[in-house]
């Protein structure tokens, strides 16, 4: 419970100042990263795809689209701080045969521009690629910028493909895949210095495919986005407790790879935990639960969700908030230990 705004907080005790600044990277100190993987991948792709154009609603710098805008200024449209227009104009460009990549923050696409994405783009199955930064809890700015329910909002939209990539390695592969896909795509974009993780696992992205990143006997973590990175860290941490954790990465939230999820969740002897950077309502967790229920698959050691609570979340420093809401590596490991 947040304290009253009329109550002065206690003075800070030592330690370094934690920041909620917008530029804060998701990467842990010392972690390998790549700068602006989305922007660079799009520039690369655009060399062979003259149909690709970029649009942003005054957030090109904060969605890594500025890399594309600098490389191809004549193919970049600055739409101003007008998300409804951003999506309608992208629809118009797609109607004329172009493949627009439209970028903004996830909150603005999901909450403000929904009707325009739904009717002007998805209903027509137009080739508009929507790449949105700050998905889930990836900023400490508070609810105005935290898209904690974007998946819940978008999953109900017919024709829309939804991708929640884990790291820079995956984003580089997602960009050409989403451009090759026929129809609209929503990408939960990680921007800035993005962690580099999955290259070490020999992982390749395939649209619509869930993939086992590592196997394990006791726990199956089904995860998407940055939570796959966390799940892999949890798996390492729990090895010391002799808990063997498998990680199934599900970057395509829709359409969901139900066959792989059923096969993995149906294997005996494991607790199934779905971990997502999203409210526990309407995201990957409930999607997986629905698949299991409809197919009569009950994981032998139970089913649990790790995700954000059904609340408007606090402002603050990201590591603090991830810990507070249970999606940090340490908090996840604590939860899983407690469930076993």
């Amino acid at each position, binding site marked *: 419970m947040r304290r009253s705004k009329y109550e002065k907080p206690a003075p800070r005790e030592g330690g370094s100042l934690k920041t909620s600044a917008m530029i804060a990277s998701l990467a842990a100190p010392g972690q390998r990263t790549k700068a602006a993987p989305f922007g660079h991948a799009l520039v690369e792709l655009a060399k062979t795809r003259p149909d690709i*154009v970029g649009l942003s609603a005054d957030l090109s710098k904060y969605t890594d689209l500025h890399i594309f805008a600098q490389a191809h200024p004549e193919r970049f*449209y600055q*739409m*101003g701080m*007008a998300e*409804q*227009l951003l*999506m*309608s*104009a*992208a*629809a*118009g*460009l*797609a*109607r*004329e*045969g*172009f493949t*627009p990549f439209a970028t903004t923050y996830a909150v603005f696409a999901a909450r403000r521009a929904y*009707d*325009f994405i*739904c*009717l*002007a783009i998805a*209903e*027509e199955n137009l080739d508009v690629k929507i790449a949105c930064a700050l998905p889930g809890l990836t900023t400490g700015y508070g609810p105005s910028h935290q898209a904690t329910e974007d998946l819940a909002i978008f999953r109900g939209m017919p024709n829309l493909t939804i991708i929640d990539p884990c790291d820079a390695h995956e984003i580089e592969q997602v960009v050409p895949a989403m451009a090759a896909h026929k129809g609209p795509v929503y990408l939960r974009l990680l921007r800035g210095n993005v962690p580099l993780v999955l290259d070490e696992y020999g992982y390749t992205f395939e649209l619509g495919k869930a993939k086992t990143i590592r196997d394990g006997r006791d726990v199956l973590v089904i995860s998407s986005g940055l939570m796959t990175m966390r799940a892999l860290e949890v798996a390492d941490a729990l090895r010391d407790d002799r808990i063997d954790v498998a990680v199934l990465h599900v970057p395509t939230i829709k359409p969901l790879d139900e066959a792989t999820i059923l096969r993995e969740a149906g294997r005996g002897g494991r607790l199934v935990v779905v971990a997502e950077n999203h409210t526990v309502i309407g995201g990957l967790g409930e999607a997986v639960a629905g698949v299991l229920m409809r197919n009569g698959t009950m994981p032998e050691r139970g089913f649990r969700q790790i995700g954000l609570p059904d609340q408007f979340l606090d402002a603050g420093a990201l590591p603090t908030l991830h810990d507070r809401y249970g999606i940090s590596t340490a908090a996840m490991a604590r939860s899983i230990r407690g469930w076993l």
Partner: protein
Amino acid sequence: MSTERLPTERPRAGSNVPLSERAYHIRRHALRMGEVQGQGYIAQALGISDVLAVSYFHAMTYRPEDPEWEGRDRFLLSIGHYAIALYAALIEAEIIPEDELTSYGGDDSRLPMSGMAAYTPGMEITGGSLGHGLGIAVGMALGLKRKGSKNFVYNLFSDGELDEGSTWEAAMSAGSFKLDNLIGLVDVNGMQADGASTGVLNFEPLAPKFEAFNWFVQRVDGNDIDALVAAFDAARNHPGPQPRIIICDTRMAKGVPFLEARERNHFLRVEPDEWQRALAILDEGRVR
């Protein structure tokens, strides 16, 4: 519903038919579709028929046999519920066969009550969620420029859509991008779902708003064909690097005085015997 009435006598497209005659036929097609359902947005259709006649038979380039021909001018119907009016124009333009008119609003019809791109040849966008058309038009106008096309994008929207913020996002953008290949057509018929437009949300003075957004603005009597022809010509030939708008003041249910007189005419209910009367009045008033 009357099924035995003979199809309208209508000269083939391409012949030298006066625009007033085109407008008469568009009104007649619309009334016949309205009769199929017994109700509908018939007042809007009658009001906008002159604008559609000038669009399809004076201003626009298109091929009836190839509605997606790359060299066509694009006509966007932002106001999805005006579909009955656009279908009438598309029938008159021979893009849709006249005998489909009786399927209007029915199961499996290509002519649903609200206009959708996937259903109807010649329907460029899915309208109906109001305030979408002008933004899509901005994107299409940008796209046409990218392709080096000389075609125009027309977007027909309503005075009610002036309430939508997205309309103004698009209006500012079109001015900012200097989209001289975009022609907006606003139907100011003064009526929206809850009553008189200016009473629901006052958008006047309208012309200065678009002028302030860097548009080339004309305001005309939208039921005066000569005035419309002059306005369309001026809009197409205007030398300035700016989008163009023709604010069309129209009269709801124009051409059928007893319907014009109805106070609540946003969604007209017409008694079964009144359709015949309306058609007869329209036929009497036909300007040859």
